[in-house]
């Protein structure tokens, strides 16, 4: 699979180089593919980073409005003064803050265990989400890699994150970080199970681990309705577990600022702190990607044939982006409304509520599937 939008450009580029150096170079086909791949990788990285920055801005602005504030207003392009007010939306606030964090001194605490503090953070906290980026579909056909083990790989990479959090928290030799790190580990390990179980129901009906295939199977359901309609319990379990996995309110226990200052990232400063926060939003974005692909029909819409969406270039990408932002809006909304729960209550909810619910969901889905496979888009 490939995006298909860079082929022409790469052909033109190689042709241009052969034209100005006639008869001197002969390109292998592999070079062409490598160029296309790297362009695609760059585009998904840029897409994710731009979306992360916009997501942070979106959250600040939205939560601000919900809290009767205005959010960031000052740092923005100068759009001028008209209709009686200065139009500024704080779009560049995050850029300014990134610059600020970059210009700060990189402090490793004197008493910290230097090796795990550095390696644990960058290898296990920062790197895995970026690796996940390669597996994400940017549209109906705009996919870089679509391995058969898609989900297994995604959750394997996801489960590296708590390890990194634990290592960073523990090695920074700070009591708040230790407690935060342990909380984070306990939380993520217990919520991975309902998360994977809720995904399991989808995998059962689609017989696939691939995000692309699952998304496209949702076009075969009655009226092309997404899986959310047919497995609402699974969707709820997935949302709650995802909120816990991404450490969002009401599950932001590892960084409960009321008692643990900044939780496991207490000792992170400057660039490291920025990366840890950016990673959190990055993971939320990836979680939204997964959730949209699994339960909201990915880049497809109900009632509109898949071939129509695929035939218009970048339409599927636009649909996907809109869905992702709606998905993220739900999390932001919850953040503005709910308090944080306690770690023992969190584990109770995980083990005593969500896991049984996830099993109930699987059983219901299997029964429904056996009664009518067409409900889940299986064409017999």
């Amino acid at each position, binding site marked *: 699979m490939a995006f298909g939008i860079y082929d022409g450009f790469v052909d033109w580029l190689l042709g241009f180089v052969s034209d100005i150096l006639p008869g001197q170079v002969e390109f292998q086909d592999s070079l062409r593919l490598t160029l296309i791949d790297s362009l695609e990788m760059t585009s998904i990285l840029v897409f994710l980073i731009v979306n992360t920055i916009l997501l942070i801005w979106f959250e600040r602005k939205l*939560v601000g409005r*919900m*809290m*009767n*504030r205005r959010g960031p207003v000052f740092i923005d392009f100068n759009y001028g003064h008209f209709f009686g007010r200065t139009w500024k939306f704080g779009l560049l606030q995050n850029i300014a803050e990134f610059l600020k964090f970059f210009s700060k001194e990189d402090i490793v605490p004197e008493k910290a265990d230097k090796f795990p503090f550095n390696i644990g953070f960058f290898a296990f906290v920062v790197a895995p989400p970026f690796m996940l980026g390669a597996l994400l579909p940017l549209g109906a056909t705009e996919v870089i890699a679509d391995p058969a083990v898609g989900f297994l790989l995604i959750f394997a990479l996801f489960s590296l994150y708590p390890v990194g959090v634990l290592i960073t928290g523990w090695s920074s030799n700070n*009591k*708040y970080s230790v*407690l935060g790190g*342990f*909380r984070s580990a306990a939380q993520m390990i217990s919520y991975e199970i309902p998360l994977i179980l809720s995904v399991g129901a989808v995998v059962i009906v689609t017989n696939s681990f691939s995000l692309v295939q699952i998304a496209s199977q949702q076009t075969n359901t009655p009226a092309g309705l997404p899986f959310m309609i047919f497995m609402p319990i699974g969707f709820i379990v997935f949302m709650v577990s995802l909120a816990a996995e991404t450490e969002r*309110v*009401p599950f*932001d*226990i590892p960084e*409960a*600022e*009321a*008692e*643990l*200052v900044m939780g496991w990232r207490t000792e992170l400063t400057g660039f490291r702190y920025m990366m840890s926060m950016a990673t959190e939003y990055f993971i939320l974005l990836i979680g939204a990607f997964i959730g949209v692909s699994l339960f909201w029909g990915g880049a497809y819409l109900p009632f509109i044939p898949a071939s129509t969406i695929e035939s218009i270039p970048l339409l599927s990408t636009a649909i996907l982006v809109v869905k992702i932002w709606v998905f993220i809006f739900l999390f932001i909304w919850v953040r*503005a*409304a*709910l*308090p*944080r*729960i*306690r*770690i*023992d*209550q969190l584990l109770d909810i995980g083990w005593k509520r969500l896991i049984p619910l996830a099993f109930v969901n699987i059983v219901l889905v299997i029964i429904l599937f056996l009664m009518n496979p067409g409900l889940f888009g299986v064409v017999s």
Partner: protein
Amino acid sequence: MSEQMYIHMGPQHPVNHGLWTLKVKTEGEQVVGSEILIGYIFRMIEKMAESRPYDTFQPLADRLCYVSAMSWEGTYIMAIEKLLGMEISKRAQYMRVIMLEFQRIASHFTWLSAYAGDLGVLTMLVIPYREREYVLDLLEHVTGSRMMYNYFRVGGLKHEFPNGFIDDARMLTYYLDDRVAEYNAMLEDSKVFMLRSKNVGVLSKENALNLGATGPVLRASGTQGDIRKVEPYLVYPDLEFEVPVRTGGDCLARFQVRMAEIRQSTHIIRQALDNLPAEGEINQKAPRRLPKGEVYFRTEDPRGEAGYYIIGNEDQIPYRVKIKSPAYSNLCLTSHLITGGKVADIPPIVASADLCMGEIDR
């Protein structure tokens, strides 16, 4: 994680709304012991009161607690009046009641936002401040100052209410009633809020009495103990109001008591505005010297029983001034409440005691 360790929460820590240290001994997430260290902002307020003419201490009494300055200066002034044996006019008394009740509302709003913020619901950290700001605007309209009012005087008040105050105040009370109902919808109807508040930091009735709890903390544990009823002052006996009492003793009960107190305060203010006498001397002349004798006068502060013990010595300068702070006794019992609970329960418990370090350290 079974080994014990100390976690220092403070003096600079988000759990402390003020400058103090909570030294918590933990075993994993479990709190097994705690120690409270205070005194970081000791300002010799009592000594300052003993070294200047009695009327010049009043601006300093404002500084005892920045959240409820009016009630601290009011208590001081009323204690001095009791020592001098002065009787002030009904009109001044009603005006004082209105001011004190508005101050109570403002203080409870501050408490609510601090408590909600500690629970992690940051929307409710911001929104009560908006309502508090309306109250403070009104108080500023009257006194000229947003927080440090300096409005009471020995013998009455500094000046009359400004024009239009009565209508503004009445409108504001109805607005606040609506808002409190909205807060209840936001918090009490929220399952997560109940999980975090119910049965958290339970203070039994015996412990509340033994540990010297006062104010909403005491009333949340099932004892009435409102000075406005127990030992009435000003015109409170003429006004009809209830003292909300809950028996849960947990953070939820303390929340409910305070929310109910806001509603009672608006009720009191409306009555006082209706009954406000048109005529009356509001700033009588006061004697220059304090008579020989001692007095203890207490009022119902937003936090509980606030008192001044003053000894006069035929002089302008009081011989001795001792301040009884309600937050001090409530602070001491938080140490008792958090022991045996979870680390995550420390912020709501500490916040539910409604601490104000200014009056604790003095």
